[in-house]
Structure formats: structure tokens, C-alpha cells
């Protein structure tokens, strides 16, 4: 069996692309660099939209990136079922691209916050969380200034009743509604979260946990099973 190929997207200003690629390799998959200006998904099996400050996060985080040529390919592919995950800036881009509902706004504290964050896995029925236990509590780093999840009351109600909240903060760091740290789309192939699984995959560096491996392990499991 050839290794699963996970695309890692680089926009101008993307920062965590090397880290995401390393995490993909750590679980035995192949990391395929995808460039924002190409109309080419290179036939990957899944896509990781890493964090950073794409286009400086000027205007609104993710607002400019969502118009990239690559996104013109990615948006229909995601709608058609391609597994896609966005972390931090990647989550913001997925919301701006309307692949996920709601929006991420300025932290309630008005400060950027970098810390190790306890998070509960609320939903394992997604392409990216199948390797976790339902309700498992994990530690992942967060580092963002605009991570406060907001959505209309209707949207929130639909997220909750549909089981679309994937991660919830234990100790809300940014004022997110319903302590939401991550969500999925209806089909479960698209997931966005503010915490950074790619910074929690090795003992030596990053957060004092390797819980992030679960995300990368999940996609592998998912791809092998299908």
C-alpha cells in the first residue's frame, strides 16, 4: 500500500506549514506541499490548512487567503468530501470560505494568548478525530489573537444539536461561545479548530503532550479504511 498523501498548504504568511508536514510524516504519511497560487491539489488524499498570519492577517484573518487560486480547487473538493482540516489561521480561512459556519473574532481579553490548553474531544465521528475516545481530554497549545468563535443563535443551536462541535475548551481562553474550540461540517470531512495539534507531537519540543498525534493518526486510519 502506498502512503497516504496529505497536502499541506502554504499561503504568503503561513507559519506552521513545516510543522504540519513534519507531523504528517511522523505518523507515516506523505506530506505534499501545496502552493496557494497553484490551481492544483496534486491528487492528495486529504488537506491540512496550517496556522500563521496569511496575508499578515490584515483586514480579517483568512479574508484574503480564501480567494487564492488553490482555494478555488479546494472548496469544491471539500464540498465533494475531501478530508480537510484547518487549524488556527486554517480554521479562520475555512470559516471565511463558508466551508464551516460562524466566524473567529478578536479574543475577549484583546490579547494574543499562547498557552497549553486543555480541550475535550466532543466528536469522534469526523475524518480527523476517529483515533480519539469520545470525551477524551487532551492538551494542545493555542496561540492566537483572534480565536473567539461566534455564530448566530440558530447556527449555534444547529451545531450543538447536530453534534458538530468537535472540540471544547476546558477553561475558555478567548471567550468563544459555548467554549467552542473546533467544529465540523455536516458531512464530517471538514474540521476546523483553534488549537495546534502539530505542536503537540514530540516529547522534545512543543507542548508537554503528544496528543496532537491523534489528529494525524485519525486521518491515516480514515484513509486506510476507505
Amino acid at each position, binding site marked *: 500500500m502506498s502512503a497516504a498523501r496529505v497536502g499541506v498548504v502554504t499561503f504568503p504568511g503561513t507559519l506552521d506549514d513545516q510543522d504540519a508536514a513534519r507531523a504528517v510524516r511522523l505518523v507515516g504519511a506523505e506530506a505534499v506541499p501545496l502552493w496557494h497560487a497553484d490551481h492544483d491539489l496534486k491528487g492528495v488524499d486529504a488537506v491540512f490548512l496550517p496556522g500563521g498570519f496569511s496575508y499578515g492577517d490584515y*483586514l480579517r484573518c483568512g*479574508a*484574503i487567503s480564501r*480567494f487564492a487560486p488553490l482555494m478555488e480547487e479546494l472548496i469544491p473538493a471539500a464540498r465533494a468530501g475531501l478530508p480537510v482540516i484547518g487549524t488556527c489561521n486554517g480554521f479562520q480561512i475555512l470559516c471565511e470560505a463558508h466551508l464551516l459556519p*460562524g466566524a473567529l473574532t478578536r479574543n*475577549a481579553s*484583546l490579547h494574543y494568548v499562547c498557552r497549553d490548553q486543555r480541550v475535550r474531544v466532543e466528536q469522534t465521528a469526523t475524518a480527523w478525530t476517529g483515533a480519539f475516545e469520545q470525551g477524551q481530554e487532551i492538551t494542545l497549545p493555542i496561540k492566537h489573537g483572534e480565536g473567539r468563535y*461566534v455564530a448566530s443563535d440558530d447556527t449555534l443551536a444547529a451545531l450543538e444539536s447536530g453534534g458538530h462541535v468537535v472540540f471544547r475548551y476546558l477553561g475558555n481562553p478567548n471567550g468563544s461561545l459555548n467554549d467552542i474550540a473546533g467544529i465540523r461540517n455536516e458531512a464530517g470531512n471538514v474540521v476546523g479548530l483553534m488549537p495546534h495539534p502539530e505542536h503537540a507531537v514530540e516529547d522534545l519540543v512543543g507542548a508537554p503532550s503528544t496528543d496532537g498525534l491523534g489528529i494525524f493518526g485519525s486521518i491515516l486510519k480514515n484513509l486506510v479504511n476507505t
Partner: protein
Amino acid sequence: MARVIVDVMLKPEILDPQGQAIARALPRLGFSGVSAVRQGKRFEVELEGPADEAALEEVRKMAETLLANTVIEDYSVRVEG
């Protein structure tokens, strides 16, 4: 050459922590008589040509798709003057 202004504000039901922080700071700084503050964005868009209806329509599209996130924000477009 004309200038078009696009104002973008958070929808009223969305929490505005920046505006709140300012409103809370005001009494401490000796300002009274303010019941609320909301903070939004103002864009000054310089057009190469005149601000005719076609140009304004372009700016409206720009506001709708790029300058504002209509999930959480409202916008308004007007010619300066």
C-alpha cells in the same frame, strides 16, 4: 479620481470586546455621559475613475465579499463628500 468610504461594523448582536473595553475605561479617565461604544472599520477606497453607479456597484461587491464578513458584520458604502 473619487473616494468611496466603506464602513464596516459588527452586527449589533455580536459582542464587541474592543468597544466594551473602551466604554469601561472612559469613566476611569474622567469621561462621563457615554452609554456605549462600538468599534468598527473604515476603508477609504480611491477609485481611478469617477464614483458612478457602476463603480459603486463594484465597491459594494468588494465590501460584500472581502471588506466585510457578512456572517458577523454589516457594511455601508458611500461617496465621500
